[in-house]
């Protein structure tokens, strides 16, 4: 009976979605951008008049990052990102408390092929994670995915070697990176007058050192997320102190 009700309700929902709601949506890619708020963010000109942004040519924009998502996440809404990092810290704290109940460690069978392959692949994973968060303002990516990729590399090490442990250094890295983010915000407050404001010059769009404070913040977030998630997975495995 429960399933019949579920099927009926989803059929009615689908009918209204296809018949009445879907035709009112604009087609994908055909939205008039000039009438949206995001247009100002994309053209990076909320203060001046609109000028087209040219790659490797435009100088002294309001925000120098070529990736629009990064400029919104780290430059326009950086306080929001600080809150997200704090939420992630709270989640890792909760796992650390809850996983402490039983002290039995999860053991895996060691596999020789996996152990050998990990030795080759792990540095590449680290390199790719670092690339994702250092180039977060130029190419798709950023601190969160880069840190998660590094944590996945640590997970691979954990699967291949039984005696591998994440030490206390991960927690110290996380603390230093987290307070570094707040420190960058406080420096912005001291120089410009607004918390987490950009206080470095924004260069030419597309260069590595172009987005002012964004690469610094994303590198810090990458270290913090990577250390935090690796210690989270490690706590999940160890049960006791990681």
């Amino acid at each position, binding site marked *: 009976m429960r399933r019949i009700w579920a099927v009926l309700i989803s059929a009615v929902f689908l009918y209204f979605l296809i018949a009445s709601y879907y035709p009112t949506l604009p087609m994908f890619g055909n939205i008039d951008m000039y009438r949206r708020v995001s247009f100002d963010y994309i053209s990076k000109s909320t203060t001046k008049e609109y000028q087209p942004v040219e790659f490797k040519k435009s100088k002294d924009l309001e925000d120098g990052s070529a990736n629009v998502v990064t400029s919104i996440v780290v430059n326009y809404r950086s306080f929001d990102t600080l809150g997200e990092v704090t939420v992630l810290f709270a989640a890792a704290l909760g796992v650390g408390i809850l996983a402490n109940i039983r002290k*039995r460690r*999860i053991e895996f069978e060691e596999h020789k092929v996996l152990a050998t392959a990990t030795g080759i692949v792990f540095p590449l994973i680290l390199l790719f994670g670092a690339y994702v968060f250092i180039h977060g303002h130029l190419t798709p*990516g950023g601190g969160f*995915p880069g840190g*998660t990729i590094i944590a996945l590399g640590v*997970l691979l090490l954990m699967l291949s070697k039984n005696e591998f442990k994440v030490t206390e250094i991960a927690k110290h890295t996380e603390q230093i990176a987290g307070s570094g983010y707040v420190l960058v915000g406080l420096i912005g407050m001291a120089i410009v007058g607004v918390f987490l404001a950009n206080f470095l010059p924004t260069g030419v769009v597309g260069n590595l050192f172009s987005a002012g404070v964004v690469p610094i913040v994303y590198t810090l977030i990458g270290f913090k997320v990577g250390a935090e*998630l690796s210690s*989270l997975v490690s706590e*999940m495995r160890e*049960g006791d102190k990681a």
Partner: protein
Amino acid sequence: MSNIIEFFQNLELLDWIFYLIGGLMIIYSLFAVEAKKVFDSILALSAVSLLSVLLFIVLKAPDVAITEAAVGSGLASAVMIFALFRMKAGEKK
């Protein structure tokens, strides 16, 4: 009813890819709900996030796609499988 027939007549190739991936996602989520073993549910959830990565790439959101691939189908599944092992270790005692 004529609305629905028109809707299916106006579909293009990209739309077909959309609805194929979306239908597969629905099937995997139903499997995740109905599966007898919890392990199978976790694998099906991982498959759902892997398919949504494809959707994000088609919708031109590579940032979200990278994050979803790393968090949704990689780390979240690993954490859930570790939690499952831990629960089983508790039950045996």
